[in-house]
């Protein structure tokens, strides 16, 4: 029930929740305009889904092909079985280069691996260069969204933070002004950094290259100046070839932010003269996930965040209420694999409305997986005791028609004659903000017996 509690807390500030929900709905609306701008939207989704399922079903083969080509291109390829190995590889590269500063563009994988605290612990200065990531780094918070990491903060809050961190004018909350200040600040780091890090949106097996999508150009700013480029990718990021890349590039930005394409789509093929590219291919539980019959399709995810923007629960509870790097519907079907016990409530943080499934550009049946994870939670005995008991009793009653009729009749009568305080109290969460239906004298089946039965 951790999510429910955090959500209640988030909702206690009504106007702020409304603002948060509306801001994300605005992104969903921009996405809706884009999906109708191109004629073959549903075909594209189907293609993307098929490509991902094919690649995931032959993942070993494509990863090996990708590695071979990447090595041929002069890229250093590292394999990391988990977060710890990944972080150590990054540290080693930095240490070998004798560098104490790292400029990063946005990467959810490095968030998942908790790379920043690890490196900072070792005395490395880590500079996030995506504006949203830099803001939450200043605020010492986790991202609340996978594409819009600081969406939970208002411009006034960002302004106050920048006053402290960047010495901006007091009381000036103009977004253009604040962005300008951040740009100036980041440029100083771009020109002085010797190592830059990026994520990977798509790794292309046939060429051994990879694509990084950003809107701010910060990945390029970092990489072009630095001598060493470190790129981290999960094993599921590989696709067969550039023809398939075209399908995903048409879907990604449209789904994510309602843009036809990201402002920058940077293709990295081989290191420039005198420079190095290190690519870290990370498993961190993904191959175990891939082996799960009912859940492997979650690995099709291209991290567009559309399911977060559309989710009526996410919009009203905020990213931090999920307690994991990847929040929202997609997070709720990824986290139970990470730790079923710790995240056992997340598959329940959904009304199962299915909007996530219909908005997903790679057609992950998210709401069905939420349903299936709920079954796992019960199987693994992680369903809360009170919930289980109540439902078990209910199950007994519903399996016995006579008991069901008697209980129904009794409950309706009790509701009718009970004073309000007996019905509406702490024991009845339904009644906190809602009335119960007025109990009718007769059930439908009683009416039917009186009015239609032949006997």
């Amino acid at each position, binding site marked *: 029930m951790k999510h429910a509690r955090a959500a209640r807390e988030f909702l206690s500030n009504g106007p702020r929740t409304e603002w948060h929900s509306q801001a994300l709905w605005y992104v969903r609306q921009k996405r809706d305009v884009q999906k109708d701008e191109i004629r073959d939207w549903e075909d594209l989704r189907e293609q993307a889904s098929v490509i991902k399922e094919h690649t995931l079903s032959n993942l070993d083969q494509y990863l090996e092909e990708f590695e071979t080509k990447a090595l041929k291109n002069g890229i250093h390829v590292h394999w990391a079985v988990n977060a710890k190995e990944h972080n150590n590889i990054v540290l080693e590269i930095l240490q070998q280069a004798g560098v104490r500063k790292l400029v990063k563009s946005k990467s959810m994988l490095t968030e998942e691996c908790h790379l920043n605290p690890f490196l900072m612990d070792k005395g490395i200065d880590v500079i996030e260069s995506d504006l949203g990531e830099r803001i939450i780094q200043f605020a010492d918070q986790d991202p609340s969204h996978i594409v819009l990491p600081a969406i939970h903060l208002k411009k006034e809050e960002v302004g106050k933070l920048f006053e402290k961190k960047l010495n901006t004018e007091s009381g000036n909350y103009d977004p253009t002004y604040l962005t300008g200040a951040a740009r100036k600040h980041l440029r100083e780091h771009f020109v002085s950094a010797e190592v830059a890090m990026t994520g990977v949106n798509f790794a292309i097996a046939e060429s051994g290259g990879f694509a990084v999508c950003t809107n701010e150009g910060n990945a390029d700013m970092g990489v072009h100046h630095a001598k060493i480029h470190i790129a981290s990718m999960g094993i599921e990021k590989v696709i067969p070839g550039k023809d398939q890349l075209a399908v995903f590039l048409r879907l990604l930005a449209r789904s994510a932010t309602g843009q036809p394409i990201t402002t920058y789509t940077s293709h990295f093929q081989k290191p420039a003269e005198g420079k190095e590219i290190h690519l870290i291919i990370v498993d961190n539980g993904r191959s175990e996930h891939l082996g799960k019959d009912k859940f492997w399709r979650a690995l099709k995810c291209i991290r567009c965040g559309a399911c977060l923007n559309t989710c009526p629960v996410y919009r009203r509870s905020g990213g931090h209420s999920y307690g994991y790097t990847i929040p929202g519907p997609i997070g709720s079907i990824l986290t139970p694999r990470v730790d079923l016990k710790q995240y056992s409530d997340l598959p329940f943080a959904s009304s199962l409305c299915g909007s996530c499934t219909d908005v997903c550009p790679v057609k992950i049946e998210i709401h069905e997986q939420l349903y299936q994870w709920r079954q796992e939670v019960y199987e693994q005995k992680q369903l809360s005791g009170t919930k289980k008991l109540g439902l078990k009793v209910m199950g007994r009653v519903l399996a016995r028609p006579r008991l069901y009729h008697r209980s129904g009749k009794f409950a309706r009568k009790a509701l009718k004659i009970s004073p309000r305080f007996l019905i509406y109290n702490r024991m009845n969460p339904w009644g906190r903000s809602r009335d119960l239906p007025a109990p*009718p004298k007769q059930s439908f089946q009683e009416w039917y017996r009186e009015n*239609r039965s032949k006997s």
Partner: protein
Amino acid sequence: MKAGLFIPCYIDQFYPQVGIDTLLLLEKLGVEIESPANQTCCGQPLANSGMEKETTEICSHFIQLFSSYDTIISPSGSCVLHIKEHVPESLHDEAYFHVRDHIYELTEFLTDVLMIEELDGHFPHRVGLHQSCHGLRGLRNGKSSELAGDPSSKARSLLSSLKDIQLVDLDRTDECCGFGGTFSVFEEAVSAQMGKDRIHDHVKNGAEVITAIDMSCLMHMEGVIKRNSHPLRVMHVAEILNFAIS
């Protein structure tokens, strides 16, 4: 054709009028229909909480009651979807497959089986149609706003054929109301807020009546409406259609 009427438990207990109107409507349209005695539930409250395997008894009783009918009709998209998708695998036999392939939500039955495009009726009110998610995105009784093209639904087509009805345009055509079964209790805060937001959309756009193909969504929204004394009421689509054509 012998049709069986499936009345979900909460409609049976709390909204018998919806069951009666469904029955009367189908009778007026010439459907030979009966409601088998001893109905209880489809098992969804348990299964959606993770306890699908504890619904074997409930579902087996359901299949036994309904497998002798040529067609099964219910005024609930959610319960119908549940029977189609989440009956425990141990019960997947011929009787179950017959039920699964012949069970219809009411507006789906009217549109796809009776092939009704227009109803001769009259309902002079401003109506907001709430798109119940399981009917829309589960049974595909229409097209959700996430998919390419304009949203549509069978319920909307049927309602819009009534004389003098004014279907109001909502800001968000098919956002969830936040009921979600046990979600409404275990995630009470979010659930209630979703309900309030949905009702606000209907009020803002001038609806006098909120209707839906699922009474569960309406039970939740009615609860919020009553608590806050909002100036509108809820009616199941079956109630409107039966009233309109009488």
